[in-house]
């Protein structure tokens, strides 16, 4: 009987360690992203800069995908069929509950994009330990790049999530970004919460 028990235990351990490897969940807030799910924005900037600009710049724009992952998948498929698109902007709220798992699900589809993509932070993305998940997956909350003499400035405007502490949006950073120089001719500012919205820190 003792051997039977031992065999049973060993079988259980074997099953759990092989078949169910990905099912081990330690917490809904545990962040342990794989390599492809890290530093995503920076890697896409590098990818974009390798791409030679032509006479027209085409941007596919999405946002507020929340927990509509199937639709995100459809969006990605549609963009991939359009050869004109140079890059994709996701304007935030990719993780509805700010859960690391939702970050992974959202990026699962965006990773299938043939063109570079950039994800801005939305208020939903910041719930729980979402700020850590965002930073880990995408990088800095405020970031910018120059492509084809155009400066794209992504700025965190989710003031309410930071209790209107006067630091979000970081206007000094924005000011420095917008200061004219020879590197760019025009600038595009991208934000999640618009300035006329109640969630924007108008002070």
């Amino acid at each position: 009987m003792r051997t039977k028990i031992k065999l049973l235990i060993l079988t259980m351990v074997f099953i759990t360690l092989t078949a169910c490897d990905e099912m081990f969940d330690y917490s809904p807030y545990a962040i342990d992203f794989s390599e492809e799910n890290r530093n995503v924005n920076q890697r896409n900037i590098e990818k974009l800069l390798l791409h030679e600009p032509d006479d027209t710049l085409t941007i596919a724009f999405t946002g507020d995908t929340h927990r509509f992952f199937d639709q995100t998948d459809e969006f990605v498929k549609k963009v991939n069929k359009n050869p004109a698109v140079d890059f994709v902007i996701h304007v935030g709220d990719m993780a509805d509950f700010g859960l690391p798992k939702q970050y992974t699900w959202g990026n699962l589809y965006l990773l299938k994009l043939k063109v570079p993509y950039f994800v801005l932070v939305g208020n939903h993305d910041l719930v729980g330990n979402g700020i850590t998940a965002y930073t880990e997956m995408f990088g800095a909350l405020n970031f910018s790049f120059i492509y084809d003499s155009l400066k794209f400035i992504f700025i965190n405007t989710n003031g309410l999530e930071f209790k209107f502490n006067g630091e979000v949006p970081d206007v000094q950073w924005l000011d420095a970004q917008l200061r004219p120089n020879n590197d760019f001719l025009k600038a595009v500012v991208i934000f999640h919460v618009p300035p006329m919205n109640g969630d924007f820190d108008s002070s």
Partner: protein
Amino acid sequence: MWKRLCFKIVLAITLGHMFNPTETCAQYSQKNDSAKYARFIPDYVKLQFAGGIGLLSAGVGYSFFKEKLEVSYFYGYVPKSVSIDDLHSVSLQVTAKFWRFKVNPGIEIVPLNVGWFIHHTFGNEYWITLPSHYPAEYYWWSPGRNSGIFLGGEIKTKLLSNKTPASGTAFYARLGTRGLYVTSKIGNSSIPFRDIVEFGFGVAFYR
């Protein structure tokens, strides 16, 4: 609403078990101190791996209705080696064990347990009630406290019973999910079921 009701029922059962009116003070005084407090000693301790409530979690609890119902309280820990930030959490679990059969005098199989749990992660960012700086009903869920359900199985043995005060050792496994995952999965056929399942296993030492 039903969560609150469930909690009340659990509380009532727990209190009912602790303060049994048939046992009078006179009877108490005849017992020695250890016997007096023996009834408060948990019926089991558990050590669990994964299952969404910690890399490792330790639990204590009571059995009711001839071991058909268990109420356990777990403390779980996620170290920095598996997550960017370490996480501390507690969870309350109610497990119903409907079926059980004895393979032999030493081994009992409890094949299909169903359970409900509520999990609370510690930390300011894991709030339970919407912080006051938000407009009312801004977010409908709470990151700090969420609940889920699980299915489990258990093999109860007499292991360690002759060497320690424990009456037996059990090995169990469970498959669970939580409300926030189910909500995320709804309408998304492209998300595999495997992704919303929290798998865990553990060992229980019965008093």
